[in-house]
């Protein structure tokens, strides 16, 4: 009896402590504010509000985003070009998209010395691919993101973090394919690329049942449709 009470006590303590640790580990909003101030941006409120919203998401890339803002601040380009990149990220974040891949692309572009306007164009294509892929999965395939923390009641209602991972990898594969000179009409090749990437990550960062669900439902023509809409 005593051991059961002790067990319950420690479980309650654990449940209270873990979220607190999570909050402490999060980078405070004021740090983003200071970083934006050093660029400086014309519309910090919009960017900050979306960052605050993104902080509530489980996969918010806090550290990479702050590092990107710092790198933009030290970039010699005009501040409006830097802000344009942050505005794209803020819009994607505000719409509930995972921005991990977008931050990675922007960081890579900065490291390669790519002009900021070209980076912005690249991000716009990647963001549109996120939007189009999500729509394709939802409206055509019935696969959608379920609120985090709730039990999965149907196989096509995938918890948000898992769904976001699928979204990132499908849309990025299409983006890489197009950037590598692939044609949207090569749906079968595109499908093979998606199949390869999801299979390689199956059991690593993606659950096998999620991969199976997507690969069973999605077809080459669906990917062609997404790719065509992204480039048009």
């Amino acid at each position, binding site marked *: 009896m005593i051991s059961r009470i002790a067990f319950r006590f420690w479980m309650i303590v654990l449940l209270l402590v873990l979220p607190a640790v999570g909050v402490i580990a999060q980078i405070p909003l004021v740090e983003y504010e200071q970083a934006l101030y050093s660029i400086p941006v014309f519309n910090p409120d919009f960017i900050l509000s979306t960052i605050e919203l993104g902080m509530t998401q489980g996969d918010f890339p806090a550290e*990479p985003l702050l*590092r*990107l803002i710092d790198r933009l601040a030290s970039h010699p380009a005009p501040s409006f070009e830097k802000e344009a990149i942050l505005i794209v990220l803020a819009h994607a974040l505000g719409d509930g998209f995972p921005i991990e891949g977008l931050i*990675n*692309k922007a*960081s*890579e*572009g*900065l*490291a*390669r010395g*790519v002009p900021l306007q*070209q*980076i912005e164009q*690249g991000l716009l294509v990647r963001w549109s691919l996120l939007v189009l892929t999500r729509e394709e999965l939802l409206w055509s395939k019935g696969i959608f993101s379920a609120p985090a923390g709730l039990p999965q009641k149907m196989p096509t209602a995938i918890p948000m973090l898992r769904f976001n991972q699928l979204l990132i*990898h499908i849309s990025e594969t299409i983006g*890489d394919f197009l*950037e*590598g*000179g692939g044609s949207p009409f090569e749906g079968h090749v595109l499908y093979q690329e998606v199949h*390869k*990437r999801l*299979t*390689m*990550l*199956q*059991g*690593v*960062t993606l659950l096998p049942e999620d991969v199976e669900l997507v690969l069973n439902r999605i077809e080459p023509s669906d990917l062609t449709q997404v790719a065509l809409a992204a480039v048009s």
Partner: protein
Amino acid sequence: MKTDGLDKLLQDTLKAEVAASAERLSDMEKRVVMELGERCPRLRGFQWLGQLLAPTRGTRLGQIVVVGATAAIFLFVGLTLSDRVLPEGGAPQVSLQPLRSADGTQEVVFVWPAPLDAKTVAVVGNFNAWEGTDLSDPDGDGIWTTSIPLSPGRYEYAFIVDGRWQGHDPRADEVIQSFGEYSSVRYIGRGGDGV
């Protein structure tokens, strides 16, 4: 008349002799076969192998035996010589096998062969926010290496040799194009071992 009498005499004589030795000729065939069987030499090792390889008997079995024996000999010679041919010291001791920790994180080795006069080699990727991690070449043989702990997942990267980007790593799982340049991709975990 004399001739007929002589013929009859000869016939009677032969009949009498055949009848006398009939008992001895009755098991002649059996005895000849037995004697030949005893004189036939026993097959030695190489004779047995030759017979095994004969096209009319046991051909497939013979081929299998020869192929198997040859493979076994080559395997034995290879294993024996490998200890003597490969140097125990002096060669770069770069372990290409990732070391896994309990949480799945692996020490992933990045290798880039640069010109001997190269001054700096770094690897950039989404694991270090595209900010360089230096490679080293302590013995000056032009093979630059570094080891980075990576959790399971997909990683894009490229090397920078004296400021020039080299995105086509032959050890990568795949190569993609990004901003018009090449980037390598490595999968760490079950799908690809990042080796």
